[in-house]
């Protein structure tokens, strides 16, 4: 029955959310064994852009060209942001830039999800923010409400545009996923095609997914090994260890800073105070101040 279906979905809606205001993640209530998460060490990141190139290749991202790029219509699911230290309003050039790789933070309480009129973006059981391209009507409300602005809209019809993948780039289009058509919203999926393959393989072999079974494209491409990715539920995974050692918890609103010598916590999540509970943790950059 459609009505009972509606009511059932309605009452289930977000009730299985792991982030209750208990201060600790309620793993018991979590709908699945897996909660994908990421940690990015900014100390290791050199801003080489390998990750974003890998993401282009893995996820069939259209190369929009100079002109559209300068119009702000680029499609990079992952971007490297640059920040300079400011000293008395002057940029301190010899300190160089700080880099921050930015992609969808896979928020647990994603601001983008609640506002989509057709439910095209919603939460998966393994803790990802998913985007159903076929369902999207292109109202762009999700993007308007995403505080990180990491959703990318297909402003043009790329599959039929010339030179988006100039030969031989067209040869390396990934057959595991689609090329999105015009008018739909897209964003980082934590390389969903990879995580699903890993899960299916594990299932076929009758075991649980273990750490290292799956790598995201950006992680794989990072020469500095700055990115780690895995299952937060698995206490043995690298990600879980990093999150734990930095005392970052999924349900926490604000990472407390412990500046004590030798015990410095570097972990934080961006814009935590808005309470989207992102699944990506960054490790702050530490360096000798030249100033």
């Amino acid at each position, binding site marked *: 029955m*459609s009505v009972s*279906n*509606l009511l059932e*979905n*309605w009452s289930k*809606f977000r009730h299985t959310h792991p982030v209750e205001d208990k201060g600790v993640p309620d793993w018991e209530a979590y709908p699945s064994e897996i909660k994908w998460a990421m940690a990015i060490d900014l100390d290791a990141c050199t801003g080489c852009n390998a990750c974003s190139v890998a993401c282009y290749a893995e996820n069939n991202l259209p190369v929009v060209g100079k002109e*559209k790029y300068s*119009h*702000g*219509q*680029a499609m990079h699911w992952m971007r490297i*942001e640059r*920040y300079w230290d400011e000293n008395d309003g002057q940029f301190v050039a010899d300190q160089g830039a700080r880099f921050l790789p930015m992609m969808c933070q896979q928020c647990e309480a994603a*601001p983008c999800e*609640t*506002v*989509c*009129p*057709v*439910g095209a973006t*919603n939460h998966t059981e393994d803790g990802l923010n998913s985007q159903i391209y076929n*369902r*999207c*009507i*292109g*109202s*762009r*409300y999700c*993007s*308007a*409400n995403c*505080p*990180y*602005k990491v*959703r*990318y*809209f*297909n*402003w*043009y*019809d790329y599959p039929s545009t010339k030179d988006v993948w100039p030969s031989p780039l067209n040869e390396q289009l990934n057959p595991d996923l689609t090329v999105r058509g*015009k*008018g*739909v*919203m897209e964003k980082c999926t934590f390389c969903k095609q990879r995580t699903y393959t890993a899960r299916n393989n594990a299932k076929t072999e009758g075991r649980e997914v273990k750490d290292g079974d799956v790598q995201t494209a950006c992680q794989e491409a990072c020469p500095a090994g700055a990115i780690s990715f895995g299952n937060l539920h698995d206490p043995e995974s690298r990600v879980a260890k990093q999150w734990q050692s930095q005392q970052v918890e999924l349900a926490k609103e604000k990472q407390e800073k412990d500046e004590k010598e030798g015990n410095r916590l570097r972990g934080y999540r961006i*814009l935590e105070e*808005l309470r989207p509970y992102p699944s990506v943790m960054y490790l702050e950059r530490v360096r000798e101040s030249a100033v």
Partner: protein
Amino acid sequence: MGKDIREDIAWAQINRDVLKSLESPRKLYWVIIFAAMLVFSVGVGCEIYQYNTGMGVANLDNPHVWGLYIATFIFWIGMSHSGTLLSAILHLMHADWRKPIYRFAEAMTTFSLMTAGLFVMVHLGRLWQFYYAVPYPNERWTWPNFQSPLLWDAMAIFTYLSSSVIFLYVGMIPDLAICRDHLHPGWRKKLYTLLALGWEGTDRQWRNFRMTYLTVACFLIPLAVSVHSIVASDFAMSQQPGWHVTSFPPYFVAGALYSGCAAIITLFIILRYVFRFEEYMTLPILKKTVRLTFAIAMVWTYLNCIEFASVWYSHDQVAKDVLIQKATGTYAPFWWAMIFCGSVVPFAMMVKKWQTNIPVMFAVSLLLNLGMWLERWMIVSPTFSHGYYPWTWDHNQWPSMIQWGIVFGSFGWFTLLFMVFCKVFPSVSMYEVKEMVYHRSLELKKKELAAKGAN
């Protein structure tokens, strides 16, 4: 102050005057129709191009995913409100000066809602899939997301539009019967016969009619308030700086009534001239409308101040930055123009001499509407230019010609619908004007009698 209407107009004269508007308007009418078609086709051309090529041609980008389309959408929704204000609220308050002018205000409501609905469509990336937002039973049991203010929007607009159409139609039935009885056979006569639903003017019919009209009016008032509150929720329910403001719903409702009243003044003046309605759309009525508009303008100004003040005194640094950006950044000229048109220009309506000066009021009403349109734009765009995230700061974007073209075209579409309506249906309510004349002459007689008695 002069009289709202002459007491000695014969009822047959009223019929004749109004029916004449269905047949022989001034030449200016055809000029307007032609211009509207031209403007509309510009919009259609732009939309076809955008549909084929993709939304990119609108020069929207990341983070500016919304632009003039959403701003103009709010503008048109807002414009629709005064129709309900004039016809339903003033009807309940027994303000009978509304009678000669409420019909066109209601038509304005209906058509501006239709224009607003157009913008919802135009702004979608995949407008051919718009029905996904409709809760229809389907094979996969996929429902729209009832949490999304955008969905509430779609439902609210649809409800408001359908009730407005019913209200407009119900209120017109006695007039349609007059048209039916007075016109020569032809398609029009057939149309009126159909729409008049066999109206004879019997007591029972009048009783039922009054009841229905009152019921729909009562239903419409909360609806009008809720519709614009919901449009405000699109912003207030999000968590973006500059939008996340509690006072948005009343602010939007006030803005809506404001722009609607300003539009009524504009159309009042145009109709009065084009259809030779000088006898009915009189200057004293204009004066009353102007005063009403001024009052609403002050409410809007007050709520505007509240919004700024609550942002200013909050601890929300980002929201504050957005406000500062509005006043000093790239949008500053538009923002100050909005303040000027919305809060300073209305004081021109305080000047007694100007209240009934047609050219001045025409210009003022256009300025007010410009101000209200700017207001919507200043709500939508600056937030994208100064969001939470540093890389969006001062990332400015200017709408492309395609976007301007579609916005421009919508005015043509509205004018076209409105003008066609005025030629096909009586835009002055004949039966209510008769009532008004009757009551006024009764009052006059009473006064005369009293004067005689005193003598």
